[in-house]
């Protein structure tokens, strides 16, 4: 029998944290389908979907996702889990934002012209950051040439590295930060300063590629995956996933 292969485009965070390495064997055992994933930026993941080169997407940029579905490229978006964003910075906290809400903290940083490192890559994290600036009453487009506002155009980890070298603040997802802490063997140059604010929740969803738009996609396999990952058993498995002993993702799929 022909090997059943499901191709997924996903954001780097799900890959980098090891979640997919953890889930893929279970999926194979449960359904006999092999999961192959391409870990790229959210923008590129959506583009791969639009070009019919993958069967399913797992991304975390709700507004872009909605636009994607509206354009007819995807169907059946289902939220599966979230983790949260945090604002990190140098331990001596020069701008004094520790314990503030996210928007307050950003406003303070801008006022103090303390160094803030942005991913600037239109990723889910970057889009979230832009929303936060807007909520804080600051037009993110105007920050572009501010000397204290550094755009790396790279992944989260590279951005964390820049932030630590430049002694700046940055917005990061918790998963990557746990990895970052781990690689520095517990002597992080950056520490968590803002966390737990509801506004900085990072919602992940799966979207099947629209078979009407892409006749060659394996929608049956995609649907199987989508059903599988929202099933209570797998939702529990996600909750059990640990990185460096810490839970990373909180499952929140709505059962049908």
């Amino acid at each position, binding site marked *: 029998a022909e090997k059943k292969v499901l191709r997924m485009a996903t954001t780097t965070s799900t*890959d980098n944290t090891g979640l997919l390495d953890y889930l893929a064997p279970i999926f194979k055992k449960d359904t006999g389908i092999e999961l192959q994933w391409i870990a790229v930026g959210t923008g590129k993941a959506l583009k791969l979907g639009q070009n019919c080169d993958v069967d399913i997407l797992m991304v975390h940029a709700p507004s872009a996702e909605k636009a994607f579905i509206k354009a007819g490229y995807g169907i059946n978006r289902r939220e599966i889990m979230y983790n949260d964003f945090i604002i990190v910075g140098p331990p001596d906290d020069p701008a004094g934002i520790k314990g503030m809400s996210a928007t307050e903290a950003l406003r303070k940083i801008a006022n103090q012209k303390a160094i803030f490192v942005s991913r600037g890559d239109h990723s889910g994290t970057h889009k979230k950051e832009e929303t936060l600036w807007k909520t804080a009453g600051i037009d993110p487009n105007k920050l572009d040439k501010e000397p204290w506002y550094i755009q790396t155009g790279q992944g989260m*980890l590279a951005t964390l590295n820049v932030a630590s070298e430049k002694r700046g603040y940055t917005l990061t997802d918790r998963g990557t930060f746990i990895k970052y802490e781990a690689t520095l063997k517990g002597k992080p140059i950056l520490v968590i300063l803002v966390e737990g604010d509801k506004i900085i929740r990072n919602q992940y969803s799966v979207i099947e590629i629209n078979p009407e738009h892409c006749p060659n996609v394996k929608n049956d396999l995609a649907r199987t995956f989508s059903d599988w990952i929202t099933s209570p058993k797998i939702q529990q498995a996600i909750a059990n996933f640990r990185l460096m002993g810490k839970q990373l993702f909180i499952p929140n799929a709505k059962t049908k």
Partner: protein
Amino acid sequence: MGYITEGIIKAFELLISRDAETYSAILTTLKVSTYAMTASLALGIPLGFFLGFLDFRGKKLLRTIVNTLLAFPTVLIGLLVYALLSQRGPLGQYGLLFTLPGVAIGQTILALPIVIALTATAVESLDRQLRITLLALGANRYQLLCTCIWEARYGILTAAVTAYGRVLTEVGISLMVGGNIKWHTRTITTAIALETSKGEFAMGIALGLVLLLIAFVVNFSLMYLRQRS
């Protein structure tokens, strides 16, 4: 600095413990670079020969273009090949996207200008007497080609080695066209890129050293062959 020594140790560990992921990436790297080198040498050496050997109008411009293509960014090649091989691209039906042959196509495009430009230079630096001698000895066009290439073999070997280094180390095409799919299209360089983006610098260095080791083995064998001939 710590992770450099750590990386060196890890490189040995990976090789000695026959780490499955590493060996899969090594195999993938060897496969895809072999395809790409075979194709680019088969096409590039004759083309380079003609460019270096023949005199024709527009030759200088052609050389300039080939030299320009030495600066063909891998990301651009990756994008173009992706555009061709994508489901919605003209070659989409062959399903080459996210496969090794697909990557090899891109790497061939990358290596080709190097092979052509360096072969042309090697052939140009041949003695002008060679042509006369070969014709005088009765070589036909094909034999002329083969013998000139053989006489320029050291230069062409350098061309091949340079192109090989380029193919072995490129990331842009492998990522874009291959998709860096674990166990399938993950090469050593894309693995390094991944490990680095994960912050696993020691692992990145370890894999980098493995890649250099492969290059050394290949070059050492070539040197040995060259010495024997």
